[in-house]
């Protein structure tokens, strides 16, 4: 039994080390100037030297792994909550359903849902271009979006970054020119890989423009794949798109189905009839997001974009197309600027207070429980480490109330040990020897520990799932901390206590009293 315990403890700790490593690297290993690479706008990144580009990709990968995030209250920045403006939304739907109020009411929720997902796409795209170090864009409960912009202090600047609407255009790819380019400038996706090198040796036709080609990665962030040459002329813009949906082709692969307005249908029919075989690029905010080949003439204003898409790409493209139809403004519900100076002294003071508190607890435990108090101390240190790893795993954000919650968890974790040790003392008072007392004491305390932990798990789960902002952060930390505390008190403390008493046969040290 004991060895099984040891095995579980070792496995859990090893996992903890693996999970916490990226956090350690990000905060303590990666130099500041390397982190600043991430705040470059995409266009700048494409101009970097190959080794810097490699570094950029490495750091981006690290940042998107299990790194524990610092909340805005700790590092300063701007926090914004947005939702589609209800008045604007109603007017937009009234237009779409030609004044049919009943239909507006019945379709409202569904439309709101799609507006939110479009807005998310547009915001991601915008902030990426804007060059914020690592913006956090989240879908919140209800039809809300929260945006965190660390390191920006001007509210006006933040408003500017998020308030512009997306611009969707269709332009032809200059296939003829693209096909004439020497292979050595292209990557395996047929895009120009190194623009500087290419422009040194080639001249782009005067009625053409160079665009970046972007695909959405697994984190929903548009990533630059290379460059493509388009004709300057805008053949169709987003206002002719009426709707876009995720569909399936005959092989069950995801595709994008879109429909056009009456006017758009006529224009599109003409374009497709005359240009079968050419590629038509879909450009959002000056970035090419897809360049499908026109297969046949498209009549009736319903088209389909096929190709090898992952579901993420299809979803993202649907949002891009819909954004053309987007005319609903986002309403700002809340905007907070949090000065980093406040963050800096709060974090140092908060951390210091937490450390002092925890050290006091350690000192008291050793003073009152002797050797077992020392065991408690070891298990509490492991507890702290595993809690941080758990938070990193859940991609949680550490906030100021979160740090308090962390310290509090330590206080509550010790409760489980106190329950165990007091029980053991009681059994000794009843005349049992130490080994028997430990067995009975641990078993009896187990029931109580489960009961108390379940109640806290229930409440912290509710807080972390349904709470707003800081309440959520507090709840998440508490939830992770309390689950870890259950593990350390049941596995670690019991194993160590048994080990010390039975294997080391304490002769000179007082075990408990």
């Amino acid at each position, binding site marked *: 039994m004991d060895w099984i315990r040891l095995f579980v403890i070792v496995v859990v700790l090893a996992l903890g080390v693996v999970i916490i490593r990226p956090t350690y690297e990000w905060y303590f290993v990666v130099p500041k100037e390397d982190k600043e690479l991430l705040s470059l706008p995409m266009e700048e990144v494409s101009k970097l030297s190959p080794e810097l580009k490699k570094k950029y990709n490495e750091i981006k990968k690290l940042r998107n792994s299990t790194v524990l995030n610092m909340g805005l209250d700790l590092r300063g920045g701007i926090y914004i909550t947005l939702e589609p403006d209800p008045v604007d939304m109603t007017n937009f739907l009234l237009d779409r359903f030609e004044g049919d109020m009943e239909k507006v009411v019945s379709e409202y929720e569904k439309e709101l849902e799609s507006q939110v997902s479009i807005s998310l796409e547009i915001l991601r795209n915008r902030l990426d271009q804007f060059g914020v170090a690592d913006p956090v864009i989240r879908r919140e409960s209800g039809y809300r979006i929260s945006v965190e912009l660390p390191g920006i202090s001007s509210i006006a600047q933040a408003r500017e970054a998020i308030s512009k609407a997306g611009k969707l255009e269709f332009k032809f790819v200059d296939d003829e020119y693209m096909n004439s380019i020497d292979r050595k400038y292209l990557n395996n996706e047929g895009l120009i890989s190194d623009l500087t090198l290419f422009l040194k040796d080639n001249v782009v036709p005067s009625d053409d423009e160079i665009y970046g080609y972007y695909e959405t990665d697994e984190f929903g962030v548009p990533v630059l794949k290379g460059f493509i040459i388009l004709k300057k002329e805008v053949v169709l813009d987003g206002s002719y798109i009426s709707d876009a949906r995720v569909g399936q082709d005959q092989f069950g692969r995801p595709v994008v189905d879109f429909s056009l307005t009456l006017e758009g249908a006529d224009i599109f029919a003409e374009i497709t009839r005359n240009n079968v075989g050419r590629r038509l690029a879909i450009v959002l905010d000056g970035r090419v997001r897809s360049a499908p080949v026109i297969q046949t003439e498209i009549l009736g204003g319903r088209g389909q974009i096929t190709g090898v898409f992952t579901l993420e790409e299809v979803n993202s493209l649907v949002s891009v197309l819909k954004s053309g139809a987007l005319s609903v403004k986002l309403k700002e519900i809340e905007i907070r600027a949090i000065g980093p*100076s406040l963050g800096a002294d709060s974090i140092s003071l908060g951390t210091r207070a937490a450390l002092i508190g925890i050290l006091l607890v350690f000192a008291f435990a050793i003073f009152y429980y002797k050797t077992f108090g020392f065991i408690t101390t070891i298990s509490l240190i492991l507890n702290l480490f595993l809690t941080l790893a758990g938070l990193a795993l859940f991609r949680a954000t550490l906030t100021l109330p979160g740090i308090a919650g962390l310290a509090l968890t330590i*206080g509550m974790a010790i409760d489980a040990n106190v329950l165990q040790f007091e029980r053991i003392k009681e059994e000794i008072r009843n005349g049992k020897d130490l080994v028997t007392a430990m067995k009975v004491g641990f078993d009896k305390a187990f029931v109580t520990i489960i009961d108390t932990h379940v109640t806290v798990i229930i409440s912290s789960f509710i807080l972390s799932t349904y709470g707003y902002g800081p309440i959520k952060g507090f709840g998440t930390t508490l939830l992770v901390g309390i689950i870890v505390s259950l593990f350390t008190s049941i596995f670690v403390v019991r194993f160590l206590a048994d080990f010390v008493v039975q294997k080391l046969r304490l002769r000179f040290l007082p075990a408990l009293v």
Partner: protein
Amino acid sequence: MFNFLEPLRNIDFVKRRFYFIGLSSVVVLIGIVLFFVKGGFRQSIDFAGGTRLEVKINDNIGIEDVRRVIVSTGVTKNVTYVGDPKDNIFLISIGVDEEYVHKVETVKKALQDNFREVIIRSENTVGPRLSQEFFRNAMILSLVVGALILIYIGIRFDFIFGLGAIVALIHDLLIAFTVILLFDIEMDISIIAAILTILGYSVTDTVVVYDRIRENFEAVKSSEVEYVVNKSIRQVIVRSVLTSFTTLLVVLAFIAWGPETLKGFAIVLLTGIISGTYSSLFIASPIVIELEKQKLIKQEQSI
């Protein structure tokens, strides 16, 4: 054998239960009086909506000078010190309306025109709509958490125990609110987080005591109820005092050395820990005595 907490075990708690109930009632009564005297809680912008500017002014001036400048703009009168007055950090609150963006700029400009070195440390703006929702969210969460815990205790123990736990819980919340009023703590998000923690902490403590009572209640007669509850309290009291003491160490560290923003949070938690321990022993347990006795007497008569 070195155990300075052992004497606690010799007190007859159950016999003195009415003193404890009386003491709590007095504290809660003070809270109710304060509530009406002060006209409710001091709400932060999280609930009331508005903008809060925290500024540090490195000139040799006092709060009166700052207030004079702010009042002259006609926007707000609300200026307070943050932390130590020597630091010259001020908190300026501005109510929310359609014009608030403009108002905030006016205030900032007035400060910068009148003083030499003005550092805007933080600016928080919350629309009043979110604040109402926020309050609703917090209230609903409290109710849901309370209900779920009640159900859990009802399943694990007995309906009577569930009632006792809820009474202890409400007791702890009332005590916490009294302290919030007493120290004039501003209600903000962190205070709500503290109150929610108290919910969990209070129940945890009550569950530990109840666990013991349940264990000792095997085949108990109605005449023995008081004796058994007293025995349970005596067995558990050392653990309860120790645990609250260690948790208090952490909270006290926050009160002594923590950031200003968490002072209120720490004070409310401190209250919750003390009253949570106290109520689990001296409020929750006596309630079980009365009700369990009635139940057992009924059972004994029906045999």
